[in-house]
């Protein structure tokens, strides 16, 4: 186990931190990020481009793909400064490209796919969305039915995806389709890169309970993809491709969000003057400290070897803590308070947090995974 804690940082890391802090102070956008629509696309791409030009994008990505090949320690320091400076949330339209599609292409993509897509993701030229869930395949992802018919050197796609965040403003989608006719469960699935401007694609944004229409339904009607450009990790091997980055996703990808949550909880505690709320805030502070200890330890372990199975524990811990923190914030400030108002106020955070224990695997599915894969408990009879 490797752990990290605040203390006497060595000179190189301290210099890195000072550089990050100075750059962030000078470059943070002067207006808050729009939550959805074309304005949010422009904002996210501009900000990503700015970070890329400043040398702050893809810190842990290999340098051959436009990253900086830095250790996780620097990545942690960057996110700490990022949260401290109040920089735009990383839970935005660039998230899937930077944290999911990009790493998947690094792990499983062809040289041509890497050369084309990776620089575009890092430099803020392309936005990605995810096409995994379907109306009939939510928690049970392996039951997906969107069909990809192989015809010569093309795949022709018919079907429907749902809960695809930012699909309305995305350039590409990481898409899971069933390419082997009659196949079941995890077999016969292919992971493809789908340009969102192709004929036959229809996108319908869905308004969320938190307000913005950030996720979408996507319909595919005879959408034709060239196999050599689209398929990542081999035809009918898509489940493995999708799983290739799970470790990454649960390691460094969520670090920014985790560190951001710790920062928010510390602010809440500082604002608390109500003795009746104090015990709740105290527990939240301790939970935030635990989240930090767990996520740093896990991120550093992922760097030196295969990340342990505790990633699923940390992910669930984060999700439930985010909900409890925003719940306490509403009690602390009260409806009508300026702290709740606005695109990024606590009212939005509170309502939006209800997605934390649903998206990417519900809390119930996460507990099943922890029980079965981490603790080795038997699966139930089905």
């Amino acid at each position, binding site marked *: *186990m490797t*752990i990290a804690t605040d203390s006497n940082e060595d000179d190189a890391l301290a210099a890195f931190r000072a550089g990050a802090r100075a750059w962030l102070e000078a470059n943070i956008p002067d207006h808050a990020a729009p939550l959805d629509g074309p304005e949010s696309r422009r904002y996210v791409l501009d900000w990503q481009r700015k970070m890329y030009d400043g040398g702050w994008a893809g810190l842990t990505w290999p340098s051959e793909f436009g990253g900086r090949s830095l250790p996780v320690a620097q990545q942690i320091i960057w996110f700490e400064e990022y949260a401290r400076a109040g920089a735009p949330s990383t839970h935005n339209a660039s998230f899937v490209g930077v944290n999911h599609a990009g790493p998947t292409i690094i792990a499983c993509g062809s040289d041509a796919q890497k050369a084309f897509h990776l620089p575009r993701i890092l430099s803020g030229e392309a936005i990605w969305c995810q096409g995994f869930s379907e109306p009939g395949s939510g928690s049970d992802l392996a039951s997906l039915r969107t069909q990809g018919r192989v015809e010569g050197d093309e795949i022709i796609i018919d079907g429907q995806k749902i809960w695809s965040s930012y699909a309305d403003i995305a350039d590409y989608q990481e898409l899971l389709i069933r390419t082997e006719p009659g196949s079941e469960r995890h077999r016969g699935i292919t992971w493809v890169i789908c340009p969102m401007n192709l004929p036959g694609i229809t996108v319908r944004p869905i308004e969320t309970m938190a307000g913005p229409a950030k996720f979408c339904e996507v319909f595919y009607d005879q959408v034709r993809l060239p196999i050599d450009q689209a398929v990542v990790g081999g035809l009918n091997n898509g489940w493995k491709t999708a799983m290739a980055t799970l470790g990454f996703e649960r390691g460094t990808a969520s670090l920014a969000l985790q560190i951001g949550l710790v920062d928010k909880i510390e602010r809440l*505690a500082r604002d608390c003057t109500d003795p009746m709320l*104090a015990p709740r805030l105290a527990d939240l502070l*301790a939970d935030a400290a635990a*989240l930090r200890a767990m996520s740093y330890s896990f991120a550093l372990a992922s760097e030196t070897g295969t990340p342990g199975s505790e990633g699923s*524990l940390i992910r669930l811990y984060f999700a439930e803590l985010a909900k409890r923190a925003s719940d306490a914030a509403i009690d602390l400030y009260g409806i009508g308070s300026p702290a709740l108002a606005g695109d990024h106020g606590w009212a939005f955070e509170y309502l939006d947090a209800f997605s934390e224990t649903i998206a990417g695997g519900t809390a119930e599915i996460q507990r099943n995974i922890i029980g079965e894969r981490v603790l080795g408990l*038997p699966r139930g*009879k089905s």
Partner: protein
Amino acid sequence: MTIFRSLGDTHELVDSFTRPVRTVLPVSRLRDDPDGEPNRWQSIVDLGWLGISVPEEAGGIGLSALEEVLAAQDFGRQLISTNYPATVIAAHAFHKAGDSDTVGALLTGEARAAFALHGHAQGVGRAIDADGATHLVAMTREGVEIRANGTLEIDDDVHWGRPVLRTAVEEPLLFDASRDTAVRGRLLIAALLAGIAAECCERGVEYAKVREQFGQPIGAFQAVKHHCANMAIMAHAAKELTTFAALSFTEGHAEAEREADAALNLALRAARENAGTNIQVHGGMGFSAECDAHLYLKAARLLDAACGGLSESRRRLMQHK
């Protein structure tokens, strides 16, 4: 500021001297051997566990709070006597006061400390497992207070697995107001509680794998599986935060006290929650005294009482928010 440090070697070192803990302190000793000497104090003395973090010149091993906290997580799993943390804290306090004779006596077993509980009145206090102890350690808001053990009699309160004794409140021998000793003590108790949380998780999971009802292991049922997942989460959080806080303390960081308070708060909750869940997973057996499950709960509550409890940890956390 952040430091990054690999703990691989530290774990190896700690394992080398905690290895016999399961043989020396089987949890069954608390159930099968109530009239014997369940504290196994002489073994603890002989193995040098009391002096892990006590400086070498004072007769200890001279390692840091980090090694001690890692070792204590293993000791906590075996429900080591509450005299262990009390004696370690007393040794540090007497060392700070320059009383090397008493430090020596504590490390060699001639002297031994137990925890005094808060809230004594009319000259009568309460102490945990103080039979055979020479000193009583109270962890107060202001610091660590040590008195001679003026044990009067065993109380009627027999609910906690170990005797809670009535004591006469003697004049304080020593008052250590240093942050160092208090924080060290909280870290040590947090580590013991983290160990309890981890052990309860393992015991519950093991049982859920073998106990069958409705034709399958109960762990296959989601309701039970999710209890187990919750225990795993709390155990992991307590372990990682306690270790993190100990490293922070060892590195002399300004935030160390805050980290220690966070660790204690989390470990207190993790231990009582996991102990309760482990009883629930064990069902009827869990409620029976023949099963060990209740021992973890009682041990967790005694450590809770020794350090001032969850409310006190919350108060401290909000003080230096």
